[in-house]
């Protein structure tokens, strides 16, 4: 097996999210970033494959320089090499413009067998980047994977679909996104955490990646925000206060009046 690449993302720590009041986009540079929770499954799966098949794992992240600590977290879990993809020109990218950067960086790491990402990021919830990156590289993609094994130059994957669990055989190289649920996540190694402190690693810009700026960031994003508006709800309802028991009784009476307890009214009689 050739190397495995994991793409991770920094997302604002819940509660520290700062929104630009003008553009209503996240102020990422100022936010305290944490590892996008679903990416933990991507890292864990990569580390399992690393142990089982003795394969090198490269972890990369596109984002502002403050994602560096997250890459170090990945190192503490066992990553062999780290790459930060950072450039002002990447800012404001939609999923296509993001995928272009990741695709180009991944291409530069050829030969590789597998790219693993999290199913989705919690700040965007689109789930688009893994398949979109795969398509740009003309590679197969499989989303929502729950298990992986490898033999005779084939990956055997199980994915969760809307209809059940599906078993697939896929020819590498390919890109997958991991379902966030795994029964076990390894803790970071203390020794590696210490090593990570003053670890330096590769940082790449648009120029290093040989990417034309008009395909990047906000400018290179075909989807654009035309405007934002606030949904206003007029205070339209009644507010009931009191002891929980009293409130519950009142609610039951209301449901009964509304005919929503019909079935029950019969039973209770």
């Amino acid at each position, binding site marked *: 097996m050739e190397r495995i690449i994991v793409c991770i993302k920094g997302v604002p720590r819940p509660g520290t999210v700062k*929104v630009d009041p003008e553009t*209503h*986009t996240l102020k990422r540079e100022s936010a305290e970033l944490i590892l996008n*929770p679903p990416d933990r499954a991507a890292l864990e799966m990569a580390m399992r494959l690393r142990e089982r098949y003795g394969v090198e794992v490269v972890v990369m992240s596109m984002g502002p320089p403050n994602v560096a600590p997250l890459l170090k977290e990945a190192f503490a879990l066992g990553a062999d090499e780290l790459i930060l993809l950072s450039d002002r020109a990447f800012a404001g990218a939609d999923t*296509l413009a993001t*995928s272009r950067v990741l695709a180009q960086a991944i291409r530069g790491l050829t030969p590789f067998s597998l790219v693993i990402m999290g199913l989705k990021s919690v700040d*965007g919830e*689109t*789930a*688009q980047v*893994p*398949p*979109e990156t795969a*398509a*740009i590289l003309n590679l*197969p*993609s*499989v*989303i*929502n994977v729950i298990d992986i094994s490898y033999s005779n130059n084939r990956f055997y994957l199980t994915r*969760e*679909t*809307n*209809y*059940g*669990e*599906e*078993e*697939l*055989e*896929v020819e590498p190289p390919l890109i997958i996104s991991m379902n966030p649920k795994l029964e076990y996540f390894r803790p970071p190694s203390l020794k590696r955490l210490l090593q990570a402190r003053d670890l330096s690693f590769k940082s790449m810009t648009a120029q290093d990646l040989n990417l034309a700026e008009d395909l990047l960031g906000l400018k290179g*994003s*075909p*989807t*654009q*925000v*035309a*405007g*934002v508006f*606030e*949904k*206003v*709800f007029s205070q*339209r*309802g*009644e*507010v*009931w206060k*009191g002891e*929980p028991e009293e*409130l*519950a*009784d009142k*609610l*039951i009476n209301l449901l009964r009046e*509304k005919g*929503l*307890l019909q*079935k*029950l009214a019969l039973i209770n009689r």
Partner: protein
Amino acid sequence: MHNLIIAFGEVYQNKINPASLEILTPLWEISRALQKGLSLLILTDNFSKLDEDIDLKKALCDEILVVENRELAEFKDDLYSKVISSVITHLNPYGVFFPATLQGMALAPRVAGELGVGLCAHVNALELEDDKLIMIRPTYGDNIMAKLFSKSFPIMATLSLGAFSIREKGEKPIIKKFDLPEDFDWSSKIRVKKLKATKKEMNRLSVAKVVVAGGLGLKSRENFQKLFDLAEALGGEVGATRPVCHAGWVEEDRMIGVSGVSVKPKLYLGFGISGAIQHTVGMENSEFIIAINTDEGAPLIKMAHISLIGDAEKILDYLLKRLK
């Protein structure tokens, strides 16, 4: 050029997925207003197997566009996206839309990546502004919705599950076979070995008459589980907010909101739910909304018909005691 709108018709066991019929409803309106055709695109190994599907005969579209090939018997991400991209290259549609099912979420970004066009995610509403298609979804900030547009063609988006109701059409849509070029490469890197169909019934959340939903204010998984008793008593379904699903209190397919499903029941009861816009876009069309929250300032209280100010767990316990 650009005189067609395409909706992806997801098929499983020779039946059209209702999520694909849902998205036809807003697309029909848009296509009429812009005087464009609306096609439901179906990829199958044998279209005659879908003959029995009455829902398909009532689909709200001008035509059902069929690509038929034995290689399409199973869903293979790379092949399916190549087929759709090829159809798009030949027909040059104005827009291509997918339901936000797992299949739609696997395919739409591949197609967008292959064609190098924009793709909006989990759109809740479509609007026209000076004949320009605007896609609407929640964004960051309190109660803020974003209007998105795409600079590229075809315009592409995945549309939120349950956000639109299925509408039927009197006459049967025309069925049109679409032949890909002779030299089209039908190969795929993916082989489907087997599908272990879920035994679990799909929940009926999106069509439920009563929805009993819970949020972090319920405090624990155990408390959340009690909602199932209440739902049973009221003949309803249980819904949840995202953090509750992430905490593992309940399966993710019960998530209500932009990233989950939209509901429009006669009665929605929200226990310990703050009412963030990402959640409320998925329940704002409920006929009657009841919120139970300790915080009178919670946004959900603002949109509720009746709000009970108090501890969600205690009120839930009393309700269950009374109903037993």
